[in-house]
């Protein structure tokens, strides 16, 4: 099941998003997710979500338009990790082109090991369907 994790600017989890109606390929629109993003906007770092299969982690067209809409609503640039069972890629908006491009995680303030543990937890929740 697709699963998402909202994290703060230090990379620490704020909220695990496992809504009813999600599937192996889709997380539905959610007012409650938006409420979490809005209420935590001052400390928000980004949202990671899974594509629950092996292989390369590219955002879908739906992902990219959601990234842009959320950033427009919050007035804040976020980090958008996409997580498969075999890799993680990190996306941010390029302010010059407005395209979402892959980046590294050098600016994240969490420890690498903590972050890897959180990605593993995200995968575990994704495999188990919550």
């Amino acid at each position, binding site marked *: 099941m697709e699963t*998402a994790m909202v994290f703060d600017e230090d990379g620490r989890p704020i909220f695990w998003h496992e809504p009813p109606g999600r599937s192996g390929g889709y997380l539905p629109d959610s*007012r409650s*997710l938006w409420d979490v993003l809005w209420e935590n906007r001052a400390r928000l770092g980004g949202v990671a979500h899974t594509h629950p299969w092996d292989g390369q982690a590219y955002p879908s067209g739906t992902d990219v338009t959601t990234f842009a*809409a959320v950033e427009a*609503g919050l*007035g804040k640039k976020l980090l958008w990790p996409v997580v498969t069972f075999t890799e993680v890629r990190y996306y941010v908006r390029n302010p010059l082109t407005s395209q979402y491009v892959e980046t590294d995680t050098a600016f994240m303030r969490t420890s690498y090991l903590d972050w890897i543990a959180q990605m593993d937890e995200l995968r575990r929740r994704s495999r188990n369907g919550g």
Partner: protein
Amino acid sequence: MEDNQALVPVVDNHMAKLTITYNGQQGDLPDPVSYDATDGDLKQMATESVRQGYIPGIDAAAGVDFTDFVVDRFPARNDVPFNRLSLRPKTPFGRKLPLKRCRNCDYLPPKGSQRSDVCSNCDEAM
């Protein structure tokens, strides 16, 4: 005029307060809108209002675009006695997987059906 004129609700049964969230700011359209207005009409109203700086609490923004925003509708309740509309960013991720065609009977479920591993036509595994 009677003194109780002020007690008449500003927003009646068919009207609603529209709250807009944009660029980290939130504000209400000063005028009530129709609760039954379409999402498209509400987005158009919001776009023009934000462009003109007509929403208290939201700075004017010439390039505002609510294409990927959605409208939540909250009917009046006892504790909030007026209809509310909220324009906020959409939040779905991923993609809807294509519907499977049954390998046994070649049945393809109609558009809009839930993707399933069992054929609704022959009850065999898809």
